[in-house]
């Protein structure tokens, strides 16, 4: 009887000891400024290098089997490719014109100055943060902004490891970003996980036709990318201060394409 009663207690002792051991780990990690917890993800790569046969061997093998008939058919194929390349060249020039016309209406004046590195969501953790592919292996840095396929900012990189990064979005309660409007008024946008709150930091000239709040290089962002469309929210200037709260409706989904702009 006594043995049966004391059995669970003994089981718990080891559990409690390991809980204390884990709290020691927290202390060590805290005083080492997260050096321990970030050591493995910063050095570990999830990319696999596959050994591919050198194409020269295959080419030399193929050359033995090449006959005259094959050469003729190859010639015809090449002719067709040249034709398709010409049509592609025409399409390319029309697309270039389109890009120039988009640049005229966009906040970004020259897309050629940016490399847009495509990334994708891997998983979402319990703190509503997202793990995205790519890290220091793709030259990502802490604070890099992340855009959706419509060009709007959806968040920024909070922590960058070797082959993946942690993305902070509007859904996270730690989200905070400094923004500008076209009159160079400064704002702070923060989230509590449910609502976004906008507060002014420095108002120089206030006008109602702000339209967009965007990121800026003065806050170490890579350029002017829109974050909030102010035409859909109400805010007023009271005592030279702007304070407003609003819901975010257009949040991305798991299959949204994400891009990280890096200036060349």
């Amino acid at each position, binding site marked *: 009887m006594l043995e049966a009663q004391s059995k669970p207690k003994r089981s718990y002792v080891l559990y409690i000891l390991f809980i204390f051991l*884990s*709290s020691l780990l*927290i202390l060590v990690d805290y005083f080492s400024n997260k050096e321990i917890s970030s050591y*493995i*993800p910063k050095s570990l790569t999830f990319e696999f290098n596959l050994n591919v046969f050198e194409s020269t061997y295959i080419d030399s093998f193929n050359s033995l089997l090449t006959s005259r008939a094959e050469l003729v058919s190859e010639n015809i194929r090449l002719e067709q490719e040249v034709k398709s390349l010409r049509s592609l060249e025409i399409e390319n020039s029309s697309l270039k014109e389109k890009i120039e016309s988009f640049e005229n209406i966009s906040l970004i004046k020259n897309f050629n100055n940016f490399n847009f590195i495509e990334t994708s969501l891997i*998983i*979402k953790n319990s703190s509503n943060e997202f*793990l995205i592919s790519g890290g220091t292996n793709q030259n990502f840095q802490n604070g890099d902004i992340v855009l959706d396929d419509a060009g709007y900012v959806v968040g920024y990189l909070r922590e960058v490891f070797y082959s993946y990064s942690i993305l902070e979005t509007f859904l996270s309660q730690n989200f905070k970003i400094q923004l500008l409007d076209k009159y160079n008024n400064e704002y702070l946008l923060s989230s509590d996980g449910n609502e976004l709150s906008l507060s002014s930091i420095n108002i120089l000239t206030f006008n109602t036709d702000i339209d967009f709040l965007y990121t800026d290089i003065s806050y170490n962002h890579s350029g002017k990318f829109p974050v909030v469309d102010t035409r859909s929210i109400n805010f007023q200037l009271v005592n030279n201060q702007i304070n407003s709260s609003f819901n975010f409706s257009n949040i991305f989904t798991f299959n949204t394409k994400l891009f990280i702009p890096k200036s060349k």
Partner: protein
Amino acid sequence: MNIIYLLTNFIFFSIILIVENFLNLIVFNKYLSISPFFVLLFIFSLTRFSNKNIFPIMGTGLIYDIFLSENYLGVYTIVFLLVSVSINYMQEKLVDFNFKLVFIFGLNYIIYNIPNILSFNFVSTTTLSIFVNYLLFLLIKRVMRLRV
């Protein structure tokens, strides 16, 4: 044999934890969080509670802290171990009443989500998630014919 048991459990726990995070990415709802890992922890703590489970649980917690979150090393290890002990302790010590299992499940789900307790919509998220995850537990219980 013991090492194989520990390793198998550790790999199984880790896979379920990664599946949990991946599922939540697909579901993509800020009011709902599906937690198969918590359900697994609940089942293990009720039916197979032993010291042998410490290493798999601790290892999974460390995996979560290192790779899947930006917390300090050991935060989720404590949470997982605490949840495991708490579930078993409540099941052993609490007097029997009609909704004892639901009560234990709900209370421990809150402990499981302690790192996010400051979140604005914690109450609404947790309430809905407890309901959905309890249904998941009932489904697994019926499929596996568990007696808890």
